[in-house]
């Protein structure tokens, strides 16, 4: 068995004002793509931030190479995992290329300037995200979808083994949603990388994720391989929404039944 990219040891995420939820206990292995599903406020973003070491857990640990993530220097963490945030704040003017280039930060010493190789990596990342022509543009002038792809390009430039993605398909048109998720799947399937992503689209989650975590608003958790977890009753309870199932050769497809919202059981 290959070494885990990150392991969750009795991890309980800390959501202020909410009783402690269930402890998460599993390793994230290369070749796995985990999807986090749950209603608004269930803690998907909190879990991703905890996995990135940005928030302390209420209990348990996140371990990287056997060490507690919260005791490790940020620089070492940044060489091993990257996180794409749900929102992007650009306080100061900056170009698209400069924004992608900050992905090299964890790998450069204080006195190093970015060299030609770093610039090449950033440009390749931009063209993989269909942004090659916009390298000189100011970030503030980008559309929401372009800005989201730029955040992914920064992650590609950083190129860590573990990708944490908070709603990576946010703002993206249909083509780019599929393009981004295809890219994640390709990179994960190459065997050396793993990904954890929060998603809202159940069918995309079922299509692209090897594993799922269902996160209930009361702190309940349920996780495992997609084929075992993706059940309509569990999803209906998760989202308090009646779902219709359409069987297809690729597995079950679900769609919400209009007007039939469930009260919380």
């Amino acid at each position, binding site marked *: 068995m290959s070494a885990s990219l990150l392991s969750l040891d009795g991890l309980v995420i800390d959501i202020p004002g909410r009783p402690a939820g269930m402890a998460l206990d599993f390793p994230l292995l290369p070749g796995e793509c985990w999807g986090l599903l749950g209603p608004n406020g269930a803690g998907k973003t909190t879990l991703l931030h905890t996995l990135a070491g940005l928030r302390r857990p209420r209990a348990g640990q996140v371990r990287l190479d056997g060490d507690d993530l919260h005791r490790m220097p*940020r*620089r070492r963490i940044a060489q091993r995992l990257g996180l794409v945030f749900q929102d992007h704040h650009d*306080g100061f003017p900056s170009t698209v290329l400069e924004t992608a280039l900050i992905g090299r*930060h964890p790998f450069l010493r204080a006195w190093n300037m970015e060299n030609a190789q770093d610039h090449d990596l950033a440009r390749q990342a931009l063209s993989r995200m269909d942004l090659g022509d916009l390298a000189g543009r100011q970030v503030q002038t980008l559309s929401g979808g372009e800005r989201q792809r730029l955040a992914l390009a920064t992650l590609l430039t*950083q190129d860590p083994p573990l990708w944490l993605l908070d709603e990576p398909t946010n703002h993206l048109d249909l083509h780019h949603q599929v393009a981004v998720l295809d890219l994640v799947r390709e990179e994960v399937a190459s065997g050396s990388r793993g990904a954890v992503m929060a998603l809202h689209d159940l069918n995309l989650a079922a299509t692209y994720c090897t594993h799922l975590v269902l996160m209930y608003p009361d702190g309940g958790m349920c996780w495992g391989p997609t084929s075992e977890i993706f059940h309509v009753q569990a999803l209906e309870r998760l989202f308090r929404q009646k779902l219709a199932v359409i069987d297809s050769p690729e597995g079950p497809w679900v769609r919400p039944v209009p007007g039939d919202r469930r009260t919380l059981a």
Partner: protein
Amino acid sequence: MLGAGAVASVLSSVMLGSVNLPARDVASVFFGEGSALARLLVLELRLPRTLAAFATGGLLAVAGALMQVLLRNPLADPYVLGISGGAAVGALLTMISGLGLAWISGSAFAGALLSTLIVFGLAHGTGSWTPTRLLLTGVVVAAGWGAVITFLLAVRPSPELPGMLYWLMGDLAHARGNVLPWLTLIVIVGLALPLGRSLNVLARGPLQAAVLGVSVRRLEWTVYLLAALVTAVAVTTAGTIGFVGLIIPHMLRLVIGNDQRLLLPASALAGGILLTLADTLARTVIAPEQLPVGVITAMLGVPVFLYLLYRSRT
């Protein structure tokens, strides 16, 4: 280009005054010749003041640039946020209590740290520093320090009072000592280069910076201490001069972008040029009377500030 501008601004400042000296006379003084009057004017009076102006301007611009990264807000400036006022109160208290000159810089630093803590702490509230909270807190704290300075000057009528008004408006006529400001300026620009890329990442928000390997809390404390120190040195040299830290980084950002590795050294040069020219103007406009240089920088800075504030609303 900025380097040439720096030399030109220093030269013009040395040449112009209540008695204008042609460039030839100034040059001859630098080569150890020239008339006694020219030597007195240049070496004893104008050159030290010019060098003090340059260093102070550079320090204020760098302090502004650092605070803007720290707060991720282009409106941050040591004067606007009341940091300069805190440093001035610290320095003034030391002078009034009769402690030695050596204590002045230290207590100015303490004053700058204290008001930085007050402003950043109160404006932080929950979550991030919103521009409104930050500016309101800063402006109120600045007004408070202004009142304290006026009070201290009023209860202690002294023949020096007119001269001490520079704590309120900034005046280089009383600038003393060039070594400390220049040393600070050189050290801070030297530090800016290795810190620069981390600051670039920090400018994109603390969470993004942390994910990219910056130990955010340590860097923020470093920048906070450096900014307070730089402000304190500038204030003890020349009083509370406003808006240099606002105008210069803003203008430079439009021209060279927001790479701190370029922006900080360029701010040091451009801030020096601006204050040298402003001081020359302050000495010559109504010569032989002199204006506090803070009047000139405020006349330039207030419109720039209002423009930035107006634009940040949209």
